[in-house]
C-alpha cells in the first residue's frame, strides 16, 4: 500500500460543531502529514468522534474548513472519500452477509473489479485470521472478529488515508494485538493514519504525534518524544492513605527538598524524582507523622502523567473508561 499523498493528508482549520447548546467541537485545528500516524486522545465526550465524522464527511461542520489530500471537502464532503477508509467505533457491515460477501461489497462500493475484490477479500480474510469464518454470517462473529473484519473492509480499496475510531476498544487482547500490529505495518508502508483513542498507552506506543482533546478543544499537539521530555527518566511513587487529610505536605517538602510532591484527585500522594526513590524512608516519615499508609506503588512516569498534567483529567477517570469499555 503506497502513500500517494504528498504534503498534508489532512488539514482542518477552525472546526466547530454544535448540538443544541452543547459545543462538541470548538475551533479545532488539525494538520496531519502524509505517512503520519496521528493520535487523537481524550476522554469520552471530548469531541473525538464528532471531529472524525466531520473529517470523513459523515457530518458537516458548523464552521471551519477541511482539506483531505489537498481536496477541499468543506462544501462537498464526498469529494475526497475515494482516498479514505474509515473504521468506526461500531461495526457497520451487513449482519446478514458473511465475511467474504461483506468485503466484496465494500470493494464494489469503491469501484473494484469483481476478480480483484474477490482476490483481495480472500487475502484480507487470511491476514486478519478470519479465513475459517469467511462463510459465516457477520452477525455470528465475536466482537473482536467483527472489529477485524470492519478494518479489513476499510482497507479493501487500498486507501492512502485511514481513519479509525477507538479501534481496540472493547475487544479481546488477541484481536487488540493483531490490530496494533497491523496498524504498525500499514504505517510502515506509508499509509496515513488518523486514530482516536482514550487508551493513553496505545497512543504512546503507536503514534508519531498526538493531540489531546478535552471538552471539544485541543489543548496540546506534539510528537510523542517532545510530550514525554518532561517525564523522561523520572521516577514516581504513588502513595495511598486511609485518611488523606493527615498527609503533612509541607513537612514532607521540608524534609525531602529534592523530591516533588503532588496531591492527586482521590487523595493519593504522588512523589516524583529524577533518581530512583527510596520508598522506606518516605513511608517511615509519613507513618511517624500520623498518616497511615495503605499502599505505596513505584512507577516510571509515562504519557499518562503528561496527559493528567496537561488536561487536569485524573488517571483514575481514564482507567474507569478503559474498564467501562471492557478492555482486558
Amino acid at each position: 500500500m503506497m502513500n500517494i499523498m504528498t504534503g498534508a493528508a489532512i488539514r482542518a482549520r477552525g472546526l466547530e460543531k454544535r448540538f443544541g447548546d452543547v459545543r462538541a467541537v470548538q475551533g479545532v485545528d488539525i494538520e496531519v502529514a502524509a505517512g503520519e500516524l496521528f493520535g487523537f486522545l481524550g476522554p469520552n465526550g471530548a469531541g473525538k468522534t464528532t471531529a472524525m465524522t466531520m473529517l470523513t464527511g459523515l457530518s458537516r461542520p458548523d464552521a471551519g474548513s477541511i482539506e483531505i489530500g489537498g481536496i477541499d471537502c468543506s462544501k462537498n464532503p464526498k469529494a475526497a472519500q475515494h482516498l479514505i477508509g474509515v473504521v468506526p467505533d461500531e461495526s457497520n457491515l451487513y449482519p446478514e452477509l458473511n465475511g467474504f460477501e461483506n468485503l466484496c461489497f465494500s470493494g464494489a462500493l469503491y469501484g473494484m473489479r469483481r476478480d480483484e475484490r474477490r482476490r483481495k477479500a480472500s487475502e484480507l480474510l487470511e491476514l486478519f485470521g478470519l479465513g475459517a469464518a469467511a462463510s459465516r454470517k457477520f452477525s455470528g462473529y465475536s466482537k473482536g472478529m467483527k472489529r477485524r473484519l470492519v478494518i479489513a473492509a476499510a482497507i479493501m480499496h487500498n486507501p492512502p488515508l485511514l481513519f479509525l475510531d477507538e479501534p481496540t476498544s472493547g475487544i479481546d487482547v488477541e484481536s487488540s494485538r493483531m490490530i496494533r500490529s497491523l496498524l504498525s505495518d500499514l504505517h510502515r508502508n506509508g499509509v496515513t493514519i488518523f486514530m482516536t483513542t482514550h487508551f493513553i498507552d496505545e497512543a504512546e506506543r503507536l503514534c508519531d504525534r498526538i493531540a489531546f482533546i478535552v471538552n471539544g478543544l485541543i489543548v496540546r499537539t506534539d510528537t510523542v518524544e517532545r510530550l514525554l521530555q518532561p517525564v523522561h527518566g523520572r521516577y514516581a511513587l504513588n502513595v495511598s492513605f486511609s485518611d488523606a487529610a493527615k498527609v503533612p505536605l509541607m513537612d514532607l517538602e521540608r524534609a525531602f527538598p529534592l523530591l516533588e510532591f503532588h496531591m492527586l484527585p482521590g487523595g493519593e500522594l504522588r512523589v516524583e524524582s529524577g533518581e530512583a526513590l527510596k520508598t522506606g524512608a518516605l513511608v517511615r516519615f509519613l507513618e511517624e507523622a500520623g498518616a497511615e499508609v495503605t499502599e505505596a506503588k513505584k512507577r516510571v512516569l509515562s504519557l499518562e502523567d503528561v496527559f493528567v498534567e496537561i488536561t487536569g483529567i485524573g488517571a483514575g477517570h481514564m482507567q474507569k473508561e478503559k474498564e467501562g469499555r471492557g478492555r482486558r
Partner: protein
Amino acid sequence: MQAYYLKPPNVSWGLLFPLAWTGMFLIRSGQDSHSLLSVLPGMIALSVLFGTSSMLAVAVTFEKKAKAFERLLLSPIPLYLLMLAKTSGAVLFGMFNALVPVLLGFWFADLSGTDWGMAVPAVLLIAVVSTFLSLLLAILATEVFEVQTLSNFVRFPMIFLCGLFFPVSALPLFLQPISFLLPLTYGVDILHHAIGGEQLLPPAVDFSVLAGFCLLLFMLSLRSINKHWIG
C-alpha cells in the same frame, strides 16, 4: 433481498395486506367481470403502494440502525445515485406485487382490451412515487414501526381519496381538491384509462404530474437526508 424481503413488517404490510384486500375484492365482485375490471386499477395501485412503502421502511430503517447505511454514506458514490440504487429494490418489489392482482385479473376477467403500453409505465411510476414518498417518511423515523405508522397516516387516506375503488367525482366536494394533491390519484387515473374505466384527466397530464411528483419527492428526500443524516 436476502436481508429484507422476509422481515416480518415487510411480509405483513407489503405482502399479506395487499393480498388480503385483493382477495376481498375478488370475492366481493364474484363472477362479474365488469365489476372486477372497475376495481382492478385500485387493487394494482394498492399492492404497489403497500409493497414499495413496506420494503423501503424495512430496508432503510434496518440499515440505519445497523449502521450499514453509514458505510454507504462513506463511499465515494454521489448521494443521489446511492438513494436511486437503494430505492430501486423497493420499486421492483412493488412492481412484482402488482403482478398478483394482474394475474388474478387474467384468471377471472377479460383483460384483452387493456392498453399495456400505458398500464406498465403507470405501474412503474406509481412504484417510484410511492417509494420516494416512503423514503421521505423513513428519513424522519428511527424504528420500522415508526415508519410504518407514519406511512399508514398517508397510505390509508390515499385508499379513499385517490380514486382506487370509487371515482374521485363521487367524493364530497370539499375532499376532491385534496385528491388532486396526492400523486396516487394520477397513477390510478392512468390505470383506469388503460383498463377501460372512467378517467379524470388526459393521460399526458397524469403522466406529467406523476413524473413531477417523483422528481419533487426525490429532491425533498435528498435534502432531508443532507439535513437529518449528514447535517
